[in-house]
């Protein structure tokens, strides 16, 4: 049974019709036409679908639309812009991190929340904070360089 939902995404409220068990990911991609986040596994195992819900990184592939309520959803597109980039976005470009780039969303959204809450993290803290994310292309070395660079920028 489809029901109506109001979704607050990147500061705009959208009305959509959906099954209550539909994961948020499909509302963002299919209904709102956002090209981020991405479907990687649908099982909360890779991070490609990560968005912020009221500032917390969540896996939108397993978060149902009915669980989102009136929470504020922020996607990678809402994190920063070329004019006002998030430090992680700047660092990603500086370090030329991605190979294919399909994983970017998960790493940046997860790291953004982590760096906001953890100033001057150690190398080990960064590694364990990002442990649950995947990058199949193996860009881990540049991801870690970029996160450290962004951490330094964020003081």
């Amino acid at each position: 049974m489809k029901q109506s939902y109001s979704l607050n995404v990147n500061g705009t409220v959208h009305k959509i019709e959906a099954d209550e068990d539909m994961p948020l990911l499909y509302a963002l991609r299919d209904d709102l036409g956002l090209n981020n986040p991405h479907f990687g596994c649908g099982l909360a195992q890779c991070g490609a679908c990560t968005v912020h819900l009221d500032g917390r990184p969540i896996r939108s592939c397993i978060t149902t639309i009915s669980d989102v309520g009136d929470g504020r959803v922020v996607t990678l597109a809402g994190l920063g812009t070329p004019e006002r980039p998030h430090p992680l976005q700047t660092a990603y470009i500086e370090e030329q991190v991605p190979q294919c780039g399909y994983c970017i969303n998960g790493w940046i959204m997860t790291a953004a929340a982590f760096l906001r809450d953890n100033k001057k993290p150690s190398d080990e803290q960064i590694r364990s904070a990002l442990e649950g994310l995947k990058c199949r292309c193996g860009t881990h070395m540049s991801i870690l360089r970029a996160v450290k660079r962004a951490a330094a920028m964020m003081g």
Partner: protein
Amino acid sequence: MTRIETNFSRRALLKAGGALVISVGAPVTFDLAHADEAGGAAAMSATVKPALTPDQLSSYIAVAADGTVAAYFGKMDMGHGIAVAIGQMVAEELDVPFRSVKVVMGDTATSVNQGGASGSTGIQEGGKQLRAAAAEARRVLVEMAVDRLGLPADQLQVADGVVSAKENAAKKVSYGELIGGRYFNVQLAWNGKIGNPLYAPGKAKPKDPKDYRVVGQPIKREDVAPRVFAQFDFITDIKVPGMVHGRMIRPKVAGAVPVNVDESSIEDIPGAKVVWNQGFLGVVADKEWDAIKASRQLKVEWSDAKPPFPAQAAIYDYIRNTPPRKKEAGGKTVGDVEAAFKNAARVIEAEYEWPFQSHASMGPACAVVDVKDDQVTIWTGSQKPHYTRDGVAALLGVPVDKVHAMWVPGPGSYGRNDAGDAAMDAALLSKSVGKPVRLQYMRDQATGWDPKGPASIHRARAALDASGKVIAYEFMSKGLPRVDVNSNESKPYDTLAGQLIGVPLKSGDGFAVPQESYGFENKYTYWETVPPLLDRGSPLRTSHLRDPVGPQIHFASESFMDEVAAALNMDSVAFRLQYVRDPRDIAVIKAAAEKAGWQTRPSPRKNLTGTKVSGRGFAYVQRGLTRVAIVAEVDVDRLSGKIWARKFTVAHDCGQIINPDGLRHAIEGNVVQGISRTLWEEVKFDNKNVTSIDCLTYPILDTTETPETIETVLIDHPEIEPSGAGEPATRPVAAAIANAVFDATGVRIRRVPFSPDNVKSALS
């Protein structure tokens, strides 16, 4: 999408009697983007260049009125920054600023078939052709300027796309003024081949490397920022009007086919439809979530197929004991190995095993296909859109010129993954429902049903004389064939869709032997293959996975060299240097050892006690014309069996370096993926099907296991034609780790993966 409208004067420039003719006709438009996301065939049809054939200069290079250069590339950039490198090579030869070159990739309407991304030949073969074409374009433009300026060519110079008199810089004409908007109509000396070996030079000779200004510079990618700001569409983001969503349904027992499908079981789902043809079963629905629900809800009765696979534990015995289907010598056979073994004072022998591995791309493959009566349009993440076009044409039985394929970057690509299958499946779905279909696989299908890197065993023997000299060496690879399905995905029998609708099979075959330059006086290397476990629609069908069969072969051969060195109580670098013959090989070996501060001593290290132990290991390989030497430094926790591959030092020689920054990133990615494949990756299966179906059952390396350091030593040979870098550094990683684990623990592990459980049992 950037579109250049070209205005040009109608003054024809015809050189009497010569080959140089500029086509003059209606104004032309050419796209500078790789794909026309929304417009489809109609919008793209205005961009079709005259005679898009490999022997036309216009098939590679065009100059717009503003001097912007389009370089049409029949390969594509899978994320290593090849587009930058190609832009650099073209800008260099044409003498235009790097920023004015746009590289247009992987669109069958704008480029000829240069083989797609394949075998690390982006620069080696693809770049070579673009370099030759750009050099020819410059020659032609200068010839035009001769006419225009009334001066002989040797009194002209070119800078930033402007031809001017050496004596009087005010006397000048720009490329844009010379040809802007018109196409080159210049015949090239095409070698008659398509794909990787396509080569079609003109009369011009490319520049002397000593004059390079753009080639060799660490220019950055421009496609990073759009990805980072969510302004970039992957193949998964392509939407076309009227599109519906598709999902495929695969059997629980490999080889089973649907015998009964109850369409009424999904009638409550809006727009849900079943597409069923023999073994091929999919659904479509208007919304993506509805398609997923329909694929899960559909009631299907499957045929009672006999479980096709041996137990996982028996796979290596299957390979060992099955009579070979095919056997071939590889490399150069030297001397008489059998005779030498008879005279040996000592024989060293070992056998190694490597499992099936999955591409496990970051996202399941996706394709959008629109099958109309008169035109088929394909958006694909396939590395080989030209072959995908050919394959879809054959599958649907339509002429190739009615099919247009556009490559759109996908969720990672390391060879023949599931992308080609998705395009073929989507084509059948679209044809059946009469609408454009966007198909994406689910995770269990991506890992469970992608073409796999083959499992194999490798046996090596060395004969030593009384002085410890190696007098003979024999090496055998035996495995599932490297290509049950060809990586070109251009034949229906090479795709799941074709196999599931009953197309006659034609399995590929072959394996390979080590690539190195050990100068043993008697040497014989060969390979054997065994038949596939299930010949049709198999989740264990094999195809190219990054550096096809390279990691397994060189895991074995370079582990074995270490074993021989250890048996002789020799330092393993010194051992290699005693036998390696090729000077470039010797140079990479020395460079890696020196950079890593390699201490000359035999392995294993002394004093093997302690829970946490460390060791260093060495390996070296050739891949094509590229050579790589690598030092791995690892920590092993003997209690947990956990290995941390902590530091790598890589010396890399791929001839002329086009972009050192891109090269370094490519090497790092190779090493990290190589570590992952060594430590973790094994496709699990039971007798019915593959059971590695997600990120838990097919784990890959995470950040806590990422090395601390990967040092690279780039050996540049401007005078030697560039060779590949997309795969070679993957090749020696497993052996370097194995050798380091031996150094640390004194235990030789001959089977990949080195997961904690496997290492623990090997150490106990």
